Protein backbone atom coordinates (compact mmCIF):
# COMPACT_ATOMS: atom_id res chain seq x y z
CA UNK A 1 0.00 0.00 0.00
CA UNK A 2 2.73 2.43 1.07
CA UNK A 3 4.83 1.44 -1.94
CA UNK A 4 1.95 2.07 -4.29
CA UNK A 5 1.48 5.55 -2.84
CA UNK A 6 5.21 6.33 -3.17
CA UNK A 7 5.20 5.20 -6.79
CA UNK A 8 2.21 7.36 -7.57
CA UNK A 9 3.77 10.41 -5.91
CA UNK A 10 7.05 9.85 -7.66
CA UNK A 11 5.41 9.43 -11.05
CA UNK A 12 3.61 12.78 -10.50
CA UNK A 13 6.78 14.61 -9.49
CA UNK A 14 8.63 13.55 -12.61
CA UNK A 15 5.71 14.54 -14.95
CA UNK A 16 7.03 17.74 -16.58
CA UNK A 17 3.87 18.42 -18.68
CA UNK A 18 2.53 21.85 -17.63
CA UNK A 19 -1.07 21.89 -16.41
CA UNK A 20 -3.62 23.23 -18.91
CA UNK A 21 -3.44 27.01 -18.87
CA UNK A 22 -6.66 28.76 -17.92
CA UNK A 23 -7.91 31.17 -20.62
CA UNK A 24 -6.58 34.71 -20.24
CA UNK A 25 -9.20 37.16 -19.14
CA UNK A 26 -9.56 40.90 -19.45
CA UNK A 27 -12.00 43.50 -18.26
CA UNK A 28 -13.07 46.06 -20.80
CA UNK A 29 -14.52 49.52 -20.67
CA UNK A 30 -18.31 49.55 -20.61
CA UNK A 31 -18.25 52.10 -23.44
CA UNK A 32 -16.12 49.84 -25.60
CA UNK A 33 -18.52 46.96 -24.91
CA UNK A 34 -21.48 49.10 -25.88
CA UNK A 35 -19.84 50.53 -29.02
CA UNK A 36 -18.42 47.24 -30.29
CA UNK A 37 -21.28 45.01 -29.13
CA UNK A 38 -19.01 42.97 -26.87
CA UNK A 39 -20.41 40.87 -24.02
CA UNK A 40 -18.91 39.06 -21.07
CA UNK A 41 -17.57 35.69 -22.26
CA UNK A 42 -16.72 36.89 -25.76
CA UNK A 43 -13.27 36.02 -27.08
CA UNK A 44 -11.16 38.95 -28.28
CA UNK A 45 -7.91 39.38 -30.06
CA UNK A 46 -5.59 41.81 -28.30
CA UNK A 47 -2.67 43.34 -30.14
CA UNK A 48 -0.32 46.09 -28.99
CA UNK A 49 -0.95 48.05 -32.18
CA UNK A 50 -4.01 48.24 -34.41
CA UNK A 51 -4.04 45.38 -36.93
CA UNK A 52 -1.14 43.50 -35.21
CA UNK A 53 -0.54 39.72 -35.65
CA UNK A 54 -1.33 37.00 -33.18
CA UNK A 55 1.05 34.34 -32.09
CA UNK A 56 4.47 35.81 -31.86
CA UNK A 57 5.47 37.08 -28.44
CA UNK A 58 4.65 40.68 -27.85
CA UNK A 59 2.49 40.96 -30.93
CA UNK A 60 -0.96 39.78 -29.83
CA UNK A 61 -3.05 37.53 -27.63
CA UNK A 62 -6.45 35.85 -27.57
CA UNK A 63 -8.41 36.71 -24.41
CA UNK A 64 -11.87 36.24 -22.92
CA UNK A 65 -13.89 39.18 -21.61
CA UNK A 66 -14.58 38.41 -17.98
CA UNK A 67 -15.96 41.75 -16.80
CA UNK A 68 -17.17 45.14 -17.94
CA UNK A 69 -15.77 48.15 -16.12
CA UNK A 70 -17.87 51.25 -15.52
CA UNK A 71 -15.92 54.51 -15.41
CA UNK A 72 -15.64 56.31 -12.14
CA UNK A 73 -17.13 59.77 -11.67
CA UNK A 74 -13.76 61.44 -12.07
CA UNK A 75 -13.65 64.97 -13.51
CA UNK A 76 -10.13 64.38 -14.84
CA UNK A 77 -11.41 61.58 -17.06
CA UNK A 78 -14.33 63.44 -18.58
CA UNK A 79 -12.45 64.55 -21.67
CA UNK A 80 -10.67 61.22 -22.25
CA UNK A 81 -12.38 59.47 -25.09
CA UNK A 82 -10.05 56.45 -25.52
CA UNK A 83 -11.23 52.94 -24.70
CA UNK A 84 -9.64 51.00 -21.88
CA UNK A 85 -8.81 47.36 -21.34
CA UNK A 86 -7.75 46.02 -17.97
CA UNK A 87 -5.57 42.97 -17.84
CA UNK A 88 -3.11 41.22 -15.57
CA UNK A 89 0.20 43.02 -15.35
CA UNK A 90 2.37 40.11 -16.52
CA UNK A 91 0.10 39.53 -19.50
CA UNK A 92 0.21 43.21 -20.37
CA UNK A 93 4.00 43.18 -20.16
CA UNK A 94 4.16 40.14 -22.42
CA UNK A 95 1.73 41.71 -24.87
CA UNK A 96 3.47 45.02 -25.30
CA UNK A 97 6.97 43.69 -24.83
CA UNK A 98 7.85 46.12 -22.06
CA UNK A 99 9.32 43.47 -19.82
CA UNK A 100 9.93 44.40 -16.22
CA UNK A 101 8.78 47.99 -16.49
CA UNK A 102 5.92 49.90 -14.85
CA UNK A 103 5.04 53.57 -15.21
CA UNK A 104 2.80 53.82 -12.22
CA UNK A 105 0.91 51.59 -9.85
CA UNK A 106 -1.50 52.04 -6.96
CA UNK A 107 -1.16 50.61 -3.48
CA UNK A 108 -4.37 50.18 -1.56
CA UNK A 109 -4.01 50.79 2.15
CA UNK A 110 -6.31 49.14 4.70
CA UNK A 111 -6.70 52.30 6.67
CA UNK A 112 -5.45 55.85 6.77
CA UNK A 113 -3.32 55.28 9.85
CA UNK A 114 -0.39 53.61 8.10
CA UNK A 115 -0.53 55.63 4.92
CA UNK A 116 1.99 58.24 6.02
CA UNK A 117 4.57 55.73 7.12
CA UNK A 118 3.99 53.67 3.95
CA UNK A 119 4.51 56.78 1.82
CA UNK A 120 7.69 57.61 3.68
CA UNK A 121 9.08 54.11 3.39
CA UNK A 122 8.28 53.82 -0.32
CA UNK A 123 9.82 57.20 -1.07
CA UNK A 124 12.93 56.29 0.94
CA UNK A 125 13.38 52.86 -0.54
CA UNK A 126 12.14 53.03 -4.15
CA UNK A 127 14.74 54.94 -6.11
CA UNK A 128 13.23 56.62 -9.16
CA UNK A 129 9.68 56.36 -7.79
CA UNK A 130 7.66 58.92 -6.04
CA UNK A 131 4.61 57.97 -3.96
CA UNK A 132 1.65 60.27 -3.42
CA UNK A 133 -1.63 60.07 -1.67
CA UNK A 134 -4.52 59.61 -4.08
CA UNK A 135 -6.14 62.64 -2.44
CA UNK A 136 -3.13 64.82 -3.31
CA UNK A 137 -3.19 63.62 -6.90
CA UNK A 138 -6.92 64.36 -7.08
CA UNK A 139 -6.31 67.89 -5.82
CA UNK A 140 -3.51 68.37 -8.32
CA UNK A 141 -5.57 67.14 -11.24
CA UNK A 142 -8.63 69.11 -10.13
CA UNK A 143 -6.99 72.55 -10.22
CA UNK A 144 -8.73 73.40 -13.47
CA UNK A 145 -12.04 72.46 -11.94
CA UNK A 146 -11.32 74.59 -8.89
CA UNK A 147 -10.81 77.58 -11.17
CA UNK A 148 -14.07 76.77 -12.97
CA UNK A 149 -15.79 76.36 -9.62
CA UNK A 150 -14.54 79.77 -8.44
CA UNK A 151 -15.68 81.28 -11.70
CA UNK A 152 -19.14 79.80 -11.16
CA UNK A 153 -19.18 81.16 -7.62
CA UNK A 154 -18.35 84.64 -8.94
CA UNK A 155 -21.20 84.38 -11.46
CA UNK A 156 -23.45 83.23 -8.61
CA UNK A 157 -22.55 86.22 -6.45
CA UNK A 158 -23.16 88.64 -9.34
CA UNK A 159 -26.51 86.94 -10.02
CA UNK A 160 -27.51 87.19 -6.36
CA UNK A 161 -26.61 90.89 -6.16
CA UNK A 162 -28.50 91.64 -9.38
CA UNK A 163 -31.47 89.58 -8.16
CA UNK A 164 -31.46 91.44 -4.85
CA UNK A 165 -31.64 94.81 -6.60
CA UNK A 166 -34.30 93.50 -8.97
CA UNK A 167 -36.30 92.05 -6.07
CA UNK A 168 -36.11 95.30 -4.14
CA UNK A 169 -37.32 97.29 -7.15
CA UNK A 170 -40.17 94.85 -7.83
CA UNK A 171 -41.16 94.91 -4.18
CA UNK A 172 -41.15 98.70 -4.09
CA UNK A 173 -43.25 98.84 -7.24
CA UNK A 174 -45.71 96.20 -6.05
CA UNK A 175 -46.17 97.86 -2.68
CA UNK A 176 -46.41 101.29 -4.32
CA UNK A 177 -49.22 99.95 -6.50
CA UNK A 178 -51.15 99.33 -3.32
CA UNK A 179 -50.66 102.73 -1.75
CA UNK A 180 -54.41 103.46 -1.96
CA UNK A 181 -55.14 100.24 -0.08
CA UNK A 182 -52.52 101.18 2.50
CA UNK A 183 -54.03 104.66 2.79
CA UNK A 184 -57.50 103.15 3.33
CA UNK A 185 -56.07 100.84 5.99
CA UNK A 186 -54.46 103.79 7.78
CA UNK A 187 -57.72 105.76 7.62
CA UNK A 188 -59.58 102.77 9.04
CA UNK A 189 -57.24 102.81 12.00
CA UNK A 190 -54.87 100.00 11.06
CA UNK A 191 -51.51 100.84 12.65
CA UNK A 192 -48.31 101.35 10.69
CA UNK A 193 -46.82 98.42 12.58
CA UNK A 194 -49.61 96.08 11.43
CA UNK A 195 -49.19 97.25 7.84
CA UNK A 196 -45.42 96.76 7.92
CA UNK A 197 -45.89 93.33 9.51
CA UNK A 198 -48.43 92.21 6.91
CA UNK A 199 -46.26 93.45 4.03
CA UNK A 200 -43.28 91.61 5.49
CA UNK A 201 -45.26 88.41 6.02
CA UNK A 202 -46.40 88.63 2.42
CA UNK A 203 -42.83 89.31 1.26
CA UNK A 204 -41.58 86.34 3.28
CA UNK A 205 -44.24 84.08 1.78
CA UNK A 206 -43.38 85.26 -1.72
CA UNK A 207 -39.69 84.68 -0.98
CA UNK A 208 -40.25 81.17 0.39
CA UNK A 209 -42.59 80.16 -2.43
CA UNK A 210 -40.23 81.78 -4.94
CA UNK A 211 -37.20 80.00 -3.56
CA UNK A 212 -39.11 76.68 -3.46
CA UNK A 213 -40.00 77.16 -7.14
CA UNK A 214 -36.38 78.20 -7.79
CA UNK A 215 -35.03 75.11 -6.06
CA UNK A 216 -37.46 72.95 -8.04
CA UNK A 217 -36.39 74.58 -11.31
CA UNK A 218 -32.73 74.29 -10.31
CA UNK A 219 -33.14 70.60 -9.53
CA UNK A 220 -34.96 70.00 -12.83
CA UNK A 221 -32.28 71.96 -14.73
CA UNK A 222 -29.51 69.97 -13.03
CA UNK A 223 -31.24 66.71 -14.05
CA UNK A 224 -31.44 67.90 -17.68
CA UNK A 225 -27.81 69.12 -17.66
CA UNK A 226 -26.58 65.87 -16.14
CA UNK A 227 -28.63 63.77 -18.55
CA UNK A 228 -27.24 65.73 -21.51
CA UNK A 229 -23.56 65.78 -20.55
CA UNK A 230 -23.51 62.24 -19.22
CA UNK A 231 -24.72 61.25 -22.66
CA UNK A 232 -22.14 63.43 -24.39
CA UNK A 233 -19.16 62.36 -22.23
CA UNK A 234 -20.46 58.93 -21.28
CA UNK A 235 -19.60 59.34 -17.64
CA UNK A 236 -21.56 58.92 -14.42
CA UNK A 237 -20.16 62.29 -13.30
CA UNK A 238 -22.74 64.78 -11.99
CA UNK A 239 -22.12 68.09 -13.75
CA UNK A 240 -24.71 70.07 -11.80
CA UNK A 241 -25.74 69.22 -8.25
CA UNK A 242 -28.34 70.93 -6.03
CA UNK A 243 -26.97 70.22 -2.59
CA UNK A 244 -28.78 70.80 0.74
CA UNK A 245 -26.22 73.55 1.40
CA UNK A 246 -27.16 75.34 -1.81
CA UNK A 247 -30.88 74.98 -0.99
CA UNK A 248 -30.32 76.35 2.51
CA UNK A 249 -28.28 79.26 1.15
CA UNK A 250 -30.85 80.06 -1.55
CA UNK A 251 -33.85 79.92 0.79
CA UNK A 252 -32.22 81.89 3.59
CA UNK A 253 -30.82 84.47 1.17
CA UNK A 254 -34.13 84.95 -0.62
CA UNK A 255 -35.97 85.12 2.70
CA UNK A 256 -33.56 87.76 4.00
CA UNK A 257 -33.73 89.74 0.76
CA UNK A 258 -37.52 89.46 0.67
CA UNK A 259 -37.84 90.65 4.25
CA UNK A 260 -35.46 93.57 3.70
CA UNK A 261 -37.23 94.56 0.47
CA UNK A 262 -40.64 94.26 2.15
CA UNK A 263 -39.48 96.28 5.13
CA UNK A 264 -38.00 99.07 2.99
CA UNK A 265 -41.10 99.21 0.78
CA UNK A 266 -43.52 99.18 3.72
CA UNK A 267 -41.56 101.81 5.65
CA UNK A 268 -41.64 104.04 2.60
CA UNK A 269 -45.43 103.84 2.52
CA UNK A 270 -46.24 104.15 6.21
CA UNK A 271 -44.09 107.26 6.49
CA UNK A 272 -46.34 109.07 4.03
CA UNK A 273 -49.64 110.48 5.23
CA UNK A 274 -52.79 108.64 4.07
CA UNK A 275 -53.87 111.76 2.21
CA UNK A 276 -50.59 111.87 0.28
CA UNK A 277 -51.02 108.20 -0.51
CA UNK A 278 -54.57 108.73 -1.74
CA UNK A 279 -53.90 111.86 -3.77
CA UNK A 280 -50.49 110.73 -4.98
CA UNK A 281 -49.02 114.20 -4.43
CA UNK A 282 -46.92 115.52 -1.63
CA UNK A 283 -47.80 118.76 0.06
CA UNK A 284 -45.21 121.48 -0.23
CA UNK A 285 -44.12 122.65 3.18
CA UNK A 286 -43.93 126.29 3.95
CA UNK A 287 -40.65 127.52 5.50
CA UNK A 288 -42.51 128.11 8.77
CA UNK A 289 -44.00 124.61 8.80
CA UNK A 290 -40.66 123.09 7.94
CA UNK A 291 -39.02 124.97 10.79
CA UNK A 292 -41.74 123.80 13.20
CA UNK A 293 -41.49 120.20 12.06
CA UNK A 294 -37.75 120.26 12.16
Amino acid at each position, binding site marked *: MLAALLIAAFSQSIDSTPPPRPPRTVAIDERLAADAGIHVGDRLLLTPTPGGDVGSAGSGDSVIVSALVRRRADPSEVARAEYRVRMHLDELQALIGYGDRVDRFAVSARGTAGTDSALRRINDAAFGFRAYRSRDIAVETSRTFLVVSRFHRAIGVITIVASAIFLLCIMLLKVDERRRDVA*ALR*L*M*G*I*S*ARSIVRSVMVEAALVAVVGSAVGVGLGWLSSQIINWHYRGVYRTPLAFAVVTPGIVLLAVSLSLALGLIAGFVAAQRLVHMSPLELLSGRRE*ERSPAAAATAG
Partner: protein
Amino acid sequence: MSDVVMKASDLRREYHMGGELVRAVRGVTLEIARGDYVAIVGPSGCGKSTLLNLLGGIDRPTTGSVTIEGSRIDQLSDAAATRFRLHHIGFVFQRFYLMPALTAIENIELPMAEAKIPRDKRVRRGRELLAYVGLEARYGHRPAQLSGGEQQRVAIARALANKPQLLLADEPTGELDAKTGTEMIELLAQVNRDGTTIVVVTHDEDLAGAAHRVVHMRDGVVVDDRRQR
Protein backbone atom coordinates in the same frame (compact mmCIF):
# COMPACT_ATOMS: atom_id res chain seq x y z
CA MET B 1 -71.12 112.53 28.70
CA SER B 2 -72.00 115.64 26.75
CA ASP B 3 -74.50 115.60 23.90
CA VAL B 4 -71.82 117.11 21.68
CA VAL B 5 -69.88 114.30 20.10
CA MET B 6 -67.60 116.54 18.07
CA LYS B 7 -66.49 120.13 18.34
CA ALA B 8 -64.35 122.04 15.86
CA SER B 9 -63.13 125.50 16.88
CA ASP B 10 -61.83 128.07 14.43
CA LEU B 11 -60.31 125.45 12.16
CA ARG B 12 -57.87 126.68 9.57
CA ARG B 13 -55.91 124.68 7.07
CA GLU B 14 -53.32 126.25 4.83
CA TYR B 15 -50.75 124.64 2.58
CA HIS B 16 -48.50 125.45 -0.33
CA MET B 17 -49.27 124.05 -3.74
CA GLY B 18 -47.41 125.04 -6.88
CA GLY B 19 -45.61 127.71 -4.92
CA GLU B 20 -48.85 129.37 -3.85
CA LEU B 21 -50.47 129.47 -0.45
CA VAL B 22 -53.82 127.68 -0.45
CA ARG B 23 -56.26 128.48 2.34
CA ALA B 24 -58.51 125.43 2.12
CA VAL B 25 -60.36 125.97 5.40
CA ARG B 26 -60.57 129.45 6.86
CA GLY B 27 -61.92 129.50 10.38
CA VAL B 28 -64.67 126.90 10.65
CA THR B 29 -66.40 126.37 13.98
CA LEU B 30 -68.80 123.48 14.22
CA GLU B 31 -70.53 121.43 16.91
CA ILE B 32 -72.09 118.12 16.09
CA ALA B 33 -74.55 116.57 18.51
CA ARG B 34 -74.67 112.87 19.31
CA GLY B 35 -76.99 111.08 16.91
CA ASP B 36 -77.01 113.92 14.42
CA TYR B 37 -76.85 113.45 10.64
CA VAL B 38 -74.91 116.32 9.05
CA ALA B 39 -74.30 116.89 5.36
CA ILE B 40 -71.52 119.25 4.30
CA VAL B 41 -72.19 120.57 0.83
CA GLY B 42 -70.69 123.14 -1.47
CA PRO B 43 -68.98 123.55 -4.85
CA SER B 44 -65.82 121.65 -5.75
CA GLY B 45 -62.72 123.07 -4.07
CA CYS B 46 -64.70 124.84 -1.33
CA GLY B 47 -62.81 122.90 1.36
CA LYS B 48 -65.47 120.43 2.46
CA SER B 49 -63.30 117.31 2.01
CA THR B 50 -60.41 119.09 3.76
CA LEU B 51 -62.79 119.88 6.62
CA LEU B 52 -63.88 116.23 6.81
CA ASN B 53 -60.21 115.13 6.91
CA LEU B 54 -59.58 117.56 9.77
CA LEU B 55 -62.67 116.34 11.64
CA GLY B 56 -61.53 112.71 11.22
CA GLY B 57 -57.99 113.31 12.43
CA ILE B 58 -56.54 112.42 9.04
CA ASP B 59 -55.15 115.89 8.53
CA ARG B 60 -53.86 118.43 11.03
CA PRO B 61 -55.23 121.96 11.16
CA THR B 62 -52.85 124.86 10.76
CA THR B 63 -54.68 126.46 13.69
CA GLY B 64 -57.78 125.60 15.66
CA SER B 65 -58.85 122.45 17.43
CA VAL B 66 -60.96 119.33 16.94
CA THR B 67 -62.39 117.56 19.96
CA ILE B 68 -64.14 114.21 19.67
CA GLU B 69 -65.61 112.59 22.79
CA GLY B 70 -63.43 114.89 24.88
CA SER B 71 -60.16 114.07 23.07
CA ARG B 72 -58.20 116.74 21.20
CA ILE B 73 -57.46 114.70 18.12
CA ASP B 74 -55.51 117.52 16.47
CA GLN B 75 -52.90 117.11 19.24
CA LEU B 76 -52.55 113.34 18.95
CA SER B 77 -49.49 111.76 17.40
CA ASP B 78 -49.95 109.98 14.10
CA ALA B 79 -50.03 106.58 15.79
CA ALA B 80 -52.42 107.76 18.49
CA ALA B 81 -54.73 109.38 15.92
CA THR B 82 -54.76 106.11 13.96
CA ARG B 83 -55.63 104.23 17.15
CA PHE B 84 -58.35 106.78 17.94
CA ARG B 85 -59.90 106.37 14.48
CA LEU B 86 -59.92 102.60 14.93
CA HIS B 87 -62.18 102.77 17.97
CA HIS B 88 -64.18 105.98 17.53
CA ILE B 89 -64.54 106.86 13.84
CA GLY B 90 -65.77 104.91 10.83
CA PHE B 91 -64.81 106.05 7.33
CA VAL B 92 -66.69 105.52 4.08
CA PHE B 93 -65.00 106.58 0.85
CA GLN B 94 -66.26 107.35 -2.60
CA ARG B 95 -64.14 104.53 -4.06
CA PHE B 96 -64.87 101.95 -1.34
CA TYR B 97 -61.21 100.90 -0.89
CA LEU B 98 -61.97 97.32 -0.01
CA MET B 99 -58.97 94.99 0.10
CA PRO B 100 -59.19 93.08 -3.21
CA ALA B 101 -57.61 89.87 -1.89
CA LEU B 102 -60.05 89.56 1.02
CA THR B 103 -63.65 88.39 1.02
CA ALA B 104 -66.51 90.62 2.13
CA ILE B 105 -66.50 89.26 5.67
CA GLU B 106 -62.70 89.38 5.90
CA ASN B 107 -62.78 93.04 4.89
CA ILE B 108 -65.26 93.68 7.71
CA GLU B 109 -63.11 91.70 10.13
CA LEU B 110 -60.00 93.80 9.40
CA PRO B 111 -60.62 96.67 11.87
CA MET B 112 -61.86 94.20 14.47
CA ALA B 113 -58.70 92.12 14.10
CA GLU B 114 -56.64 95.27 14.62
CA ALA B 115 -58.71 95.97 17.75
CA LYS B 116 -57.76 92.46 19.00
CA ILE B 117 -61.32 91.14 19.00
CA PRO B 118 -61.30 87.31 19.14
CA ARG B 119 -61.94 85.55 15.87
CA ASP B 120 -65.27 83.95 16.80
CA LYS B 121 -66.66 87.32 17.87
CA ARG B 122 -65.32 88.94 14.72
CA VAL B 123 -67.01 86.39 12.50
CA ARG B 124 -70.29 86.71 14.41
CA ARG B 125 -70.24 90.50 14.22
CA GLY B 126 -69.16 90.39 10.57
CA ARG B 127 -72.14 88.21 9.69
CA GLU B 128 -74.48 90.47 11.66
CA LEU B 129 -73.18 93.51 9.80
CA LEU B 130 -73.48 91.80 6.43
CA ALA B 131 -77.07 90.93 7.27
CA TYR B 132 -77.58 94.54 8.38
CA VAL B 133 -76.47 95.87 4.99
CA GLY B 134 -78.42 93.13 3.17
CA LEU B 135 -75.46 91.09 1.95
CA GLU B 136 -75.49 88.05 4.22
CA ALA B 137 -75.37 85.71 1.22
CA ARG B 138 -72.28 87.46 -0.20
CA TYR B 139 -69.94 87.00 2.74
CA GLY B 140 -67.51 84.81 0.80
CA HIS B 141 -67.33 87.04 -2.26
CA ARG B 142 -64.32 89.16 -3.08
CA PRO B 143 -64.78 92.84 -4.06
CA ALA B 144 -64.31 92.05 -7.75
CA GLN B 145 -67.32 89.72 -7.55
CA LEU B 146 -69.55 92.44 -6.06
CA SER B 147 -71.33 95.34 -7.76
CA GLY B 148 -70.46 98.93 -6.88
CA GLY B 149 -73.45 99.24 -4.57
CA GLU B 150 -72.61 95.97 -2.85
CA GLN B 151 -69.00 97.06 -2.38
CA GLN B 152 -70.18 100.30 -0.79
CA ARG B 153 -72.47 98.32 1.54
CA VAL B 154 -69.51 96.17 2.59
CA ALA B 155 -67.49 99.38 3.12
CA ILE B 156 -70.25 100.75 5.38
CA ALA B 157 -70.38 97.46 7.29
CA ARG B 158 -66.58 97.66 7.69
CA ALA B 159 -66.84 101.25 8.93
CA LEU B 160 -69.34 100.11 11.59
CA ALA B 161 -67.28 97.08 12.66
CA ASN B 162 -65.87 98.56 15.87
CA LYS B 163 -69.16 100.32 16.75
CA PRO B 164 -67.86 103.88 16.24
CA GLN B 165 -69.76 106.86 17.62
CA LEU B 166 -69.06 108.78 14.45
CA LEU B 167 -69.30 107.81 10.79
CA LEU B 168 -67.58 110.12 8.29
CA ALA B 169 -68.41 109.65 4.61
CA ASP B 170 -66.82 111.40 1.65
CA GLU B 171 -69.10 111.31 -1.42
CA PRO B 172 -70.43 107.82 -0.59
CA THR B 173 -72.82 107.86 -3.57
CA GLY B 174 -70.33 109.43 -5.97
CA GLU B 175 -69.52 106.18 -7.80
CA LEU B 176 -73.02 104.72 -7.77
CA ASP B 177 -75.91 104.90 -10.22
CA ALA B 178 -79.14 106.66 -9.19
CA LYS B 179 -80.97 103.54 -7.98
CA THR B 180 -78.03 102.19 -5.99
CA GLY B 181 -77.39 105.70 -4.67
CA THR B 182 -80.93 105.84 -3.33
CA GLU B 183 -80.45 102.49 -1.60
CA MET B 184 -77.26 103.82 -0.06
CA ILE B 185 -79.04 106.95 1.19
CA GLU B 186 -81.63 104.71 2.86
CA LEU B 187 -78.92 102.56 4.40
CA LEU B 188 -77.09 105.60 5.84
CA ALA B 189 -80.37 106.91 7.24
CA GLN B 190 -80.93 103.51 8.88
CA VAL B 191 -77.43 103.59 10.37
CA ASN B 192 -78.18 107.03 11.78
CA ARG B 193 -81.57 105.93 13.17
CA ASP B 194 -79.72 103.09 14.93
CA GLY B 195 -77.66 105.65 16.85
CA THR B 196 -74.53 106.45 14.84
CA THR B 197 -73.67 110.12 14.30
CA ILE B 198 -73.01 110.74 10.60
CA VAL B 199 -71.12 113.52 8.86
CA VAL B 200 -71.24 113.24 5.09
CA VAL B 201 -69.59 115.37 2.43
CA THR B 202 -71.55 115.28 -0.79
CA HIS B 203 -72.62 116.88 -4.04
CA ASP B 204 -75.65 114.62 -4.07
CA GLU B 205 -78.74 116.68 -3.29
CA ASP B 206 -80.79 113.61 -2.42
CA LEU B 207 -78.17 112.50 0.09
CA ALA B 208 -77.94 116.00 1.56
CA GLY B 209 -81.73 116.04 1.70
CA ALA B 210 -81.75 112.95 3.87
CA ALA B 211 -79.54 114.62 6.50
CA HIS B 212 -80.95 116.42 9.56
CA ARG B 213 -78.62 119.33 9.13
CA VAL B 214 -76.92 120.80 6.06
CA VAL B 215 -73.74 122.87 6.31
CA HIS B 216 -72.99 124.92 3.21
CA MET B 217 -69.38 125.84 2.52
CA ARG B 218 -67.82 128.25 0.09
CA ASP B 219 -64.17 129.30 -0.21
CA GLY B 220 -63.21 127.52 2.98
CA VAL B 221 -65.86 129.04 5.24
CA VAL B 222 -69.32 127.96 6.37
CA VAL B 223 -71.84 130.22 4.67
CA ASP B 224 -74.98 128.49 5.83
CA ASP B 225 -75.79 125.98 8.56
CA ARG B 226 -79.40 124.89 8.50
CA ARG B 227 -81.35 122.21 10.31
CA GLN B 228 -83.86 120.49 8.03
CA ARG B 229 -85.86 118.49 10.55
